């Protein structure tokens, strides 16, 4: 593999890791606060549809982004209502959200656009275009540095940079602010937070809202930056891979970035090398496409070690008598 191919694979790694990273950080906020969320997938899908739909109708990608975030946060609110206010089962609520999003997006898309459950393809103004760094073009031909700067670092959409900036921001919020301390505490022992005079419900809703916000950006990125429009089930399990990455990272932000880049690399490799010839045997494209998912299982089963989730995760908080 030559240098340029490597750079291209890494470049697409960054682009493919972005939605995973946003969703993974979304899950991190929620689960650190003690609310398990397997509905990341559904929230992303809903956001992908509404951002594409609004961007295609208005021609304004920023309005699309806002619509995607709003749709995702609405589902977050539903999850919060079910699992925080009504103390329902968080897994069931998450599954319900996934089903709801899978069905509703296609249904509304068909009703609005009549294109077989997809939105019209987005034109340039309906998408997030690449941001070109200063001098990216002039240094392009410098050996080594040139391709790294102008291919790998420059030329991504603004949401990619946002996603990677969210990593240090999350670390800082989690470990350097009052909100972060309380957020981590409420996922470990909500009773400690409650008796300290802080609202458990308020904290958990705040976490779920942040989760909705980030999932919304992730979904909008899928439909308006990575691709040009919404198609049925376009999240393709990314919400679940993000959850896997979250466990792999043991609910820590920097490690989450590492895990998401790893899963992104797997997807990039699968995209790039479709049919691999090994002597007389050809590895079919389906195997390559399935590879990221298979490796997800392998990594989770074998390489994670003991991942201890936040201690009160999944349990609704009830004051004991």
């Amino acid at each position, binding site marked *: 593999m030559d240098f340029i191919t490597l750079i291209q694979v890494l470049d697409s790694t960054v682009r493919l890791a972005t939605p995973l990273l946003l969703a993974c950080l979304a899950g991190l906020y929620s689960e650190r606060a003690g609310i398990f969320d397997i509905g990341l997938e559904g929230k992303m899908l809903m956001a992908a549809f509404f951002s594409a739909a609004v961007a295609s109708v208005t021609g304004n990608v920023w309005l699309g982004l806002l619509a995607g975030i709003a749709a995702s946060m609405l589902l977050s609110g539903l999850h919060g209502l079910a699992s925080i206010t009504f103390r329902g089962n968080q897994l069931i609520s998450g599954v319900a959200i996934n089903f709801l999003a899978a069905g509703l997006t296609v249904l509304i898309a068909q009703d609005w656009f009549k294109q077989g459950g997809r939105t019209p393809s987005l034109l340039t103004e309906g998408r997030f275009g690449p941001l070109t760094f200063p001098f990216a073009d002039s240094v392009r031909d410098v050996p080594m540095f040139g391709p790294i700067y102008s291919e790998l670092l420059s030329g991504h959409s603004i949401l990619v940079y946002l996603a990677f900036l969210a990593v240090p921001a999350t670390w800082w919020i989690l*470990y*350097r*602010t*009052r*909100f*972060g*301390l*309380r957020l*981590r*505490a409420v996922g*470990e*022992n909500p*009773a*400690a*937070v*409650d*008796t*300290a*005079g*802080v609202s458990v419900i308020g904290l958990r809703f705040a976490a779920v809202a942040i989760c909705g916000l980030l999932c919304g950006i992730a979904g909008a990125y899928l439909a308006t930056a990575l691709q040009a429009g919404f198609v049925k089930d376009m999240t393709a399990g990314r919400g679940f891979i993000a959850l896997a990455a979250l466990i792999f990272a043991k609910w820590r932000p920097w490690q989450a970035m590492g895990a998401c880049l790893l899963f992104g690399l797997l997807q990039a490799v699968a995209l790039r090398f479709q049919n691999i010839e090994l002597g007389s045997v050809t590895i079919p494209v389906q195997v390559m496409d399935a590879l990221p998912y298979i490796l997800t299982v392998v990594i989770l089963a074998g390489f994670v070690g003991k991942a201890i989730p936040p*201690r009160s995760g999944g349990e609704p908080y009830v*004051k004991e*008598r």
Partner: protein
Amino acid sequence: MTAPAIELKGISKSFGPVQANKDISIRVAPGTIHGIIGENGAGKSTLMSILYGFYKADKGEIWINGNRTEIPDSQAAIAAGIGMVFQHFKLVENFTVLENIVLGAEDGGLLMPSLSKARKILKELAAEYELHVDPDKRIDEIGVGMQQRVEILKALYRQADILILDEPTGVLTPPEADQLFRILDRLRAEGKTIILITHKLREIMDATDTVSVMRRGQMTATVKTSETSPEHLAELMVGRKVLLRVDKVPAKPGKPIVEIEQLRVVDEAGVERLKGIDLTLRAGEIMGIAGVAGNGQSELLEVLGGMRSGEGVIRLNGVDLPLQGAGSDARARRAAHVAHVPEDRQSEGLIMGFHAWENVAFGYHHAPEYQKGLLMDNAVLRADTEAKMAKFDVRPPDPWLEAKSFSGGNQQKIVVAREIERNPELLLIGQPTRGVDIGAIEFIHKQIVALRDQGKAILLVSVELEEILSLADRVAVMFDGRIMGERAVDETDEKELGLMMAGVAGEVA
């Protein structure tokens, strides 16, 4: 005269049909230690939860330092200068001491300034009250005694003048408990008001200035501690005369029934929980195992009861019991006449959502008398349950009631009846009276002594040293998976046992 630090006027609180607090009035003088004593379910915790803003009273008023105060939530309680140390600590285990103290009382959005300020104040508090802790240790790295100090410091950091402690000695060794009471004395000397909730009469007599007694949701009396006696308090708690000592004749130990040699247990996490136990249990003798919870007592019960595998030798009437693989399970143990009353009746002794008669079958559901062809003979089982309930005075005596509908004492009687009525050679009994009211304790103790007098061996594990001293004939103290020493009960005292519980080796008796 100064106003009372706390005055409650006519507090009432119901949970559905259950009236937890009925028209309770109490005055607590500032700078005193005020005890509140009562049986489980008497309403002590409910009352304190109202004071700390966990529940809202249906009726009644709260006055703090002479001012009428509304306490709708914990925030308001903290603002009113009330601090609470719960029975189950409210600490975040993987946070440091400092982070736990700051949580909820931060100064601003950023953490660093709050933490360094807390570090400074913590130093001052440590000097003032002799409450030393390492602020950078994580909670799961320090012992329970230390954790309790962190809870007290949390309250002091929030400038509490009134400190409520709910059953504070339940998890402490006797020396740790003594240390706690010294700290409380010190706090009182500095002008703090302390409310001590407990069911242990001795602590009330030792530590408090005034004591209030609660029974069935009502405050039955408030007396000066110096003017009362344990017997009188017990009578006020239960509403009738009770025997505080277990009535029993001296044991007549017979032949060894169980011989345990070099018993080792390694748990799922690879930690060695039992590090070579040697113990002999004799016919007609109650062997008590004392120790702070978590020093291997549970594992000892479990390996004897067939719930866990181990290495070493356990001989029952001269026959080796398998400790691993086939024949080492609980069913095989029961077939070998080992009965087991587990430590946690709600998760291991009973299935809370099943009827009493179904619970009576557990572990013995293969018994021939319960079978009718391929089916179980439920009619026989129910009749058997009724007979056991009558004999053990289970109230209400209704086999169709679900286990969770019985009080703690009656649940325990169901388990004890199931196990004792099988006439076992060896009875394993863990925490027989945890969460059980005094009346039922008296009854359960009598049944255990009766089994002993039939010449059976009994292994009693309890974290209540008082219970072991009054019920057992011999006592072995466990610390860190080993037996620190063994004594005849009438040749030792709490002080010696307390030292052994803290890991100071006793001379081999």
